């Protein structure tokens, strides 16, 4: 074997080592680490300590009955934190570390402020569809006043279109067995609550100020943060639940239906109602008052699923027995509505005659102002100071003011969790211009009242007959059993 290095051999060696060297270099290169080829919003640039107003998101428990979240849609914009902290006064108002649960009143304002639709209500649509399809079940649906002036938006109608009759027609077409009006139950609530208020004014002064309790978001808020005021809450159930209890007792008896075969569904502008219907106290004779809640948006989904267009559906009347409503019942949907309705009947209960014209068009307590005050002079009782407050952060400030002052200058306070009242609820149609939408809806609600035949709850003929035939009179033993409730002190779940 010759050891002489020929030119050819030399070139081969050089080329070979060149290729080898390059290969070694290239192969040792570690390349790019995995991850980091996605995106985060610019709020989170740098150390994430820019003084941005909004970042992160609220905590939502998997067991929350009102709302749920699709992480894939979440862009960490922080709007939900803004709603929960600045508008509703829940986020950040309890100490860390956590005790038993994450505080959530189910108001759904985070849903309304979420721009990507990541947070939504927990859907009952499938359950309701299954109940409708089940022949053994008698499915009863009731519609809240706020939904009557909002549902149209989901079908392209202008904001503030009143669609009560169309909604009833649509619900019948969808297969519900009975279609009732929550406004009837609102009248019923007024009968009980006004009686209770007058009773407290005259006989039970320690339960003054009288705080309304038809808003489940506010009720839970009170249970969490102001448990010492729980005895001031009205013991009346909310209209939805009064209706539910009445259906499963009075109506079931009247129609000869087994209450366990009745499925009570309500159409609500509200996500907190989903929490409310699961409350253990809201049952009678082993039957939960209500079964499912569909928000306005969910109803639109259900109707569209069944191919029903609200624009073209035939109108229908609400079923009788529990279908008549007065103007007083219809204004529940707006902030100040409950108060106005209550005062109309309270006036009647105290004096025996209907209220004067100005109380039938009580401007001082209408509108979007966060706290509204007024005084009603009721002959024989005197001047009743009233406050109407909506948006839970406003509620917090008002109540903190009362606590600081040691007493309340108002005898009757209406609290609504959602800004604007129920028409601004967490289950309402989302719009590009929420302020205008709420204004139009409120206008429509009061138009329902002024256009109504009867303006006061006590004038409702079906209400009168139900007391005659079943409850006897307001605050009777039977009324207490079916139409009144108790509350749960939740303070210890958040605080030491």
């Amino acid at each position, binding site marked *: 074997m010759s050891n002489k290095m020929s030119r050819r051999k030399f070139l081969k060696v050089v080329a070979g080592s060149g290729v080898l060297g390059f290969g070694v270099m290239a192969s040792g290169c570690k390349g790019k680490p995995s991850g980091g080829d996605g995106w985060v919003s610019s709020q989170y640039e740098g*150390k*994430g300590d820019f003084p941005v107003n909004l970042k992160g998101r609220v905590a939502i428990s998997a067991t929350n009955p009102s709302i749920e979240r699709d*992480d894939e849609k979440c862009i960490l914009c922080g709007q939900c934190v803004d709603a929960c902290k600045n508008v509703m006064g829940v986020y950040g108002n309890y100490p860390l570390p956590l005790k*038993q649960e994450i505080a959530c009143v189910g108001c759904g304002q985070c849903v309304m402020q979420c721009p990507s639709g990541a947070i939504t209500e927990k859907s009952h649509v499938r359950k309701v569809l299954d109940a409708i399809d089940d022949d053994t079940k008698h499915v009863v649906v009731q519609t809240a006043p706020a939904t009557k002036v909002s549902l149209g938006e989901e079908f392209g109608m202008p904001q503030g279109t009143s669609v009560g009759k169309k909604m009833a027609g649509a619900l019948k077409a969808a297969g519900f067995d009975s279609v009732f009006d929550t406004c009837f139950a609102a009248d019923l609530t007024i009968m009980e609550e006004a009686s209770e208020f007058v009773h407290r004014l005259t006989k039970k002064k320690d339960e003054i100020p009288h705080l309304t309790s038809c808003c489940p978001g506010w009720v839970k808020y009170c249970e969490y943060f102001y448990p010492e005021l729980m005895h001031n809450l009205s013991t009346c159930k909310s209209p939805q639940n009064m209706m539910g209890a009445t259906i499963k007792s009075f109506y079931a008896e009247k129609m000869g239906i087994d209450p366990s075969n009745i499925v009570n569904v309500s159409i609500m502008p509200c996500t907190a109602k989903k929490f409310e219907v699961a409350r253990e106290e809201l049952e009678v004779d082993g039957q939960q008052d209500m079964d499912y809640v569909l928000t306005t948006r969910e109803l639109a989904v259900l109707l569209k699923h069944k191919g029903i267009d609200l624009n073209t559906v035939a109108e229908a009347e609400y079923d009788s027995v529990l279908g008549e409503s007065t103007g007083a019942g219809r204004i529940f949907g707006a902030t100040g509505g409950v108060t106005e309705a209550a005062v109309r009947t309270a006036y009647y209960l105290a004096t025996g005659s209907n209220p004067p014209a100005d109380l039938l068009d009580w401007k001082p307590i209408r509108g979007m102002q966060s706290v509204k005050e007024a005084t009603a002079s009721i002959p024989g009782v005197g001047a009743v100071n009233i406050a109407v407050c909506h948006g839970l952060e406003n509620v917090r400030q008002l109540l903190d003011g009362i606590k600081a002052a040691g007493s309340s200058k108002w005898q009757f306070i209406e609290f609504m969790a959602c800004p604007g009242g129920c028409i601004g609820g967490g289950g309402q149609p989302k719009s590009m211009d929420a302020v205008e939408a709420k204004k139009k809806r409120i206008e429509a609600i009061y138009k329902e009242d002024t256009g109504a035949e009867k303006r006061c709850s006590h004038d409702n003929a079906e209400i009168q007959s139900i007391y005659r035939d079943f409850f006897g009179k307001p605050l009777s033993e039977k009324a207490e059993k079916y139409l009144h409730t108790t509350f749960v002190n939740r303070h210890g779940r958040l605080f030491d």
Partner: protein
Amino acid sequence: MAVLVDITKCIGCEGCTVACKRYNNLNFKAKPRNVKEDGNVELDDNRWTVIQEFHGEKNDKLRFVKKQCLHCKEPACASACFSKAIQKDEKTGAVVYYPDLCVGCRYCLVACPYSIPKYQWNEQFPQVSKCQMCSERVSKGDAPACVSACTTGALTSGDRDELLKKAHEIIRSDSRYINQVYGEHEVGGAEWLYISDVPFEDLGFKEVTNVPVTSYTKSYLSKVPGLAACWALFLSGIAFYNYRVDKNRNQIQDPHDNDDQDKEG
């Protein structure tokens, strides 16, 4: 870049998990591979960090614990990787995985004392999956995406020594905290540090010794060259001895000629 996790401040919003999935382009729709009995979800190839929920014995201590790679100071995974696909960045402290170098042997999965690295079992060419501490962000001095997204201050990032000082100050000033910073010494220490008011073993933390597991490998491998050399010398010596014995016995000049006797099998 170290991170201090104050478990008492976490409200379980999981903004951190969303930020991580966004920044690293992970799949939101992937179903969890491993759901424990208590309902808690484990890390997997699409979940580089998870929040686990614990309720306390009397159900009065709701705690959310963020779980992800602890970026150890003596990482077992980096030590175990025979192609240097996992490397600890000395500047940032992040333990980073480079898929281009990965052979896919999964030694890092079994080596990690906390069982952090996971694998893309559904891919044709699977890669290892674990928190990278947003290595690009961190090398610029920015916080990892999860830390940026935290609203309650449960996550703060910074220099490890400073965070340790801060952690011990918090523990000193508030008697509710357990007197331990998890990650300070465990298996040699980590960049992710935890403080809590509930004992760590009740929050799913593994009880490990303070000895880095890499020390066992190091002590063995350091002996290998020496032992191998000794053994080689011994063998060569015997071989040479045998050769000489054979040569003398057979008086051979050319080893080619006697195939029968000189063959080793």
